[in-house]
């Protein structure tokens, strides 16, 4: 049973379409990620759902109710912004309580709910601080608490982790996912970071040039890209034109091929047809650049011991599982 349904949604500025014919549905409690490069229309789509930007055509149904004619105040949607958008003149407690104040919730119950939600984001001891006295990660947790306190039907997260450093980002994404699952909150998350999308989502909608090009769970998106864009955006796929693919595999390949770097095996062999042309250590993975049959490939190998490291110029034999070859449009 779908809780959110988007039907033929369009957004145009004059003759320019930001997105067109967007359609999807989300079940209650699902965590959906809109993933795509900058300018693909994902943030505009989120703003349209929030009511902050008008739509040109189409419908947005939330629990059966059409949101399009409703003002943002009437949609019962919570949103977290990349810039936090905390009110600088208010303390953490006042920021979080703002939505309840607008709903005219009595002081006593409002205080309880604010305390509860601040505890949920582990900021209960920061209630009397002002936003400028908090770190970026803390600000984003306050923003999350502020959007949760009104118990919205749908939570929208617009690149909430983009302005944070890597360590805090990792911690916060785990925390967001945990809270979302605890509360069973239907969530739409926007990001351009594939790692965030793959680790957090129940399903991912991959967007490009105002269209959803592929949707599915992380495994499906990662292992079965439907086209060259999907293969290029998710992971570090080797994308080969049909000519290169035919030369590499020694047989006719009618379409372009996508091969995951970790799906290619390397074996040291002085008579092998491949040659290591470069390598870089990525921690637990060694990334090789290999040239075989005039085709350049990227190959990821697990870094098990120093003995595994092949020097540049080493001749190697390539082993590719036929099942890992993806034909793409």
């Amino acid at each position: 049973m779908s809780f959110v349904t988007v039907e033929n949604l369009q957004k145009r500025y004059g003759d320019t379409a930001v997105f067109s014919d967007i359609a999807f549905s989300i079940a209650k409690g699902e965590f959906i990620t809109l993933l795509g490069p900058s300018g693909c229309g994902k943030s505009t789509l989120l703003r349209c759902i929030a009511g902050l930007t008008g739509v040109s055509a189409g419908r947005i149904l939330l629990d059966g109710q059409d949101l399009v004619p409703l003002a943002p105040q009437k949609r019962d949607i919570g949103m977290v912004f990349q810039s936090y958008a905390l009110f600088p003149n208010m303390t953490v407690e006042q920021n979080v309580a703002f939505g309840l104040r607008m709903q005219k919730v009595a002081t006593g119950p409002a205080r309880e709910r604010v305390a509860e939600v601040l505890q949920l984001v582990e900021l209960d001891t920061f209630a009397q601080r002002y936003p400028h006295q908090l770190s970026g990660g803390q600000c984003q947790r306050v923003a999350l608490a502020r959007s949760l306190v009104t118990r919205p039907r749908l939570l929208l997260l617009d690149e909430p982790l983009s302005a944070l450093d890597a360590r805090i980002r990792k911690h916060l994404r785990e925390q967001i996912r945990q809270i979302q699952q605890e509360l069973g909150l239907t969530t739409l998350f926007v990001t351009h970071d594939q790692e965030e999308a793959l680790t957090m989502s129940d399903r991912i909608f991959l967007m490009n040039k105002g269209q959803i090009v592929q949707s599915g769970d992380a495994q499906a998106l990662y292992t079965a890209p439907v086209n060259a864009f999907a293969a290029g955006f998710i992971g570090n796929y080797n994308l080969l034109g049909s000519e290169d693919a035919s030369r590499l595999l020694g047989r006719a390949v009618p379409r372009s091929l996508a091969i995951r770097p970790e799906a290619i095996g390397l074996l040291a062999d002085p008579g092998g047809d491949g040659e290591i042309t470069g390598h870089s250590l990525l921690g637990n993975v060694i990334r090789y650049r290999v040239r075989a049959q005039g085709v350049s490939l990227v190959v990821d190998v697990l870094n098990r011991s120093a003995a595994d490291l092949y020097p540049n110029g080493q001749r190697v034999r390539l082993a590719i599982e036929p099942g890992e070859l993806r034909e793409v449009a």
Partner: protein
Amino acid sequence: MPAERTAHALYHRTVVWVLFLILLLPLAGTLLYSLATSWSATILPSGLTLKWYLALWSETRFLQAFGRSLFVCVGALVLATVLILPLLFVINYHFPRLDALMNVLILLPFAVPPVVSAVGLLQLYGSGPLAMVGTPWILMGCYFTVALPFMYRAISNNLQAIQLRDLMDAAHLLGASTLQAALLVVLPNLRKGLLVALLLSFSFLFGEFVFANLLVGTQYETLQVYLNNMRNSTGHINSALVISYFFFVLVLTWLATFLNKGKH
């Protein structure tokens, strides 16, 4: 190296102090003269007294001029606040493209020299249905245009610093109407920028002479016009007036700087 650095520091410090003393000297002279019982043929005054200040602050004409200046400046700034704040909000939130046009418009009061624009205003408002020359209202309107660039720029910078659009969007999604969001979220964050702009504009307008003298003159004598008219009276009283005026503006400027420092 450290010796060279000390010598450099000493040189810079000396230059700054000498400049400071040069600028302070006329003011110190005026202050001393305003406190002197008499000071004519001697290096130092013959005695010190507060009688000139007492005389000045008990003179009705001075107090009236002071009050008129206050009235005109406060009126102009109230008008500026009431008109510019909503205008800036609308431009920044709804029509950000108009900001470029506004930046040109607010420079116009500076494009025409005050004497020239005063002549134009005299012709325009000297007679006819809008005859306002000689009344405080023309001065208020004129001061509004003079204060416009200061006010507009200060508040506009403040608005850009607070990410107006995101704050408004967040407030809307939390259930606030546009008016509630503007009053509860935006306005409190503009308070300091607005106060600084008001105080600096006030200091500037309080000392304005050209428009006051040409547009209203003695018909509505403001402080600067009074000072000009009193130039032939005793220098002690004039000195007390200048020092009083300077002290008043100094307190206002200090207040503006203090509020600006408190900004986060």
